[in-house]
């Protein structure tokens, strides 16, 4: 007797080729448009020119926006603080990677 075959759900990697609109990014992350616009204005995400409706976010923005949202929820950090925290986290990652290469 044949065993029932398992169906596997195919996933898609959100990489540098992926793009999100402002609405799509908010939908995917749970952030509000006001929050994302504020973070872009502080340089935490982006940079982006033109009207927010024309903005296109790379896949990495999904990760950054999720981190930003967690930092807001856990620490009530304001937009300049989010920009600073994301910069420092990126630097920490680079330093950790450098240590890992030693």
């Amino acid at each position, binding site marked *: 007797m044949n065993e029932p075959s398992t169906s596997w759900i195919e996933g898609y990697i959100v990489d540098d080729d992926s793009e999100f609109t402002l609405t799509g990014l908010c939908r995917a992350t*749970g952030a509000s448009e006001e929050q994302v616009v504020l973070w872009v204005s502080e340089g935490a995400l982006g940079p982006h020119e033109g009207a927010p409706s024309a903005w296109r976010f790379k896949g990495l923005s999904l990760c950054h926006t999720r981190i930003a949202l967690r930092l807001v929820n*856990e*620490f009530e950090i304001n937009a300049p603080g989010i920009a600073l925290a994301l910069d420092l986290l990126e630097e920490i990652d680079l330093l950790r990677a450098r240590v890992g290469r*030693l």
Partner: protein
Amino acid sequence: MKYRDYYEILGLPRDATQDAIKRAYRKLARKYHPDLNKNNGAEDHFKELGEAYKVLKDTEKRTAYDRMGSSWRDGQDFQPPPQWDENFEFTGKGNDGGRTTTDFSEFFEAMFGRDRAGDHSRQAGGNATASDLEGAYSGAQCSIPGQDHHARITIDLDDAYHGAQRAISLDTPMLDAQGHVAVQSRTLNVSIPKGMRSGQHLRLPAQGGAGFGEGRAGDLYLEITIRDHPRFRVDGRNVTLDVPVAPWEAALGASIQVPLPDGAVEMTIPPDSGGGRRLRLRGRGIPGNPPGDLYAVLKIALPPADSERSKATWNTMRQAFDFDPRADFYR
């Protein structure tokens, strides 16, 4: 059920002020936040802190918690005193924005969980919310798309190289018809493509919260972490490996076999290589477009001087070389 000493978790006396509770939480949360602290156990500790803070920052929950008495110790077997919450009214306030009831301990669930947790937000709920449903009922043919969901999974380095098929169990808080949060478990059979890197997301279309009416289901995003490997270190798409070599292999050059995640490779060690020299194997890191590189770092392993013969050999080397490894000290 085990008692949780929320004051001990936050390192506070039981008469701590609300300001002190907030300060202690913020300080410890920064220390153990999973975005900042990548050590094993940090995320679990962070969740404990969040649970403790959720109770102690809320005057209602804190008062109810204090009524259980101060003689309990963290981890002690615990049964709540009879009618411990009699005549106690919970307003259900105190949304934590994104945390789910599945993050909490059995103790919290029993004392403050479910409808008392107050997490009826879109973030926690996932499907269309009570307010969405209210809006839907008030108008004809209203369709609401389902919420996108997020979860974290850990994969092995081999999975990143070759792809994998995994059955993933997820606990999802859902709103029932009465607006209460109930946890539903489900298992997804997921095909993980090769080339995934730590921090990347895998999007599973239509596997998030269910939509309402004609609204499509939300997507599920899986945030990927690659499990630490005893031999390989991963940095983005690049992979680093320490390769032990004998002193004569480093000095004279050699061809050695090195095991990589995608199969063994014959590697040439150039003559006169020093310890710590990095040799790049282009394109042998994590697959992708472009693929990462693999770096082999030479570590010179010394044979032990534990016999007369080996000591004599080292002595012969000393006499053969006019070599001072600390010559730079005095320049």
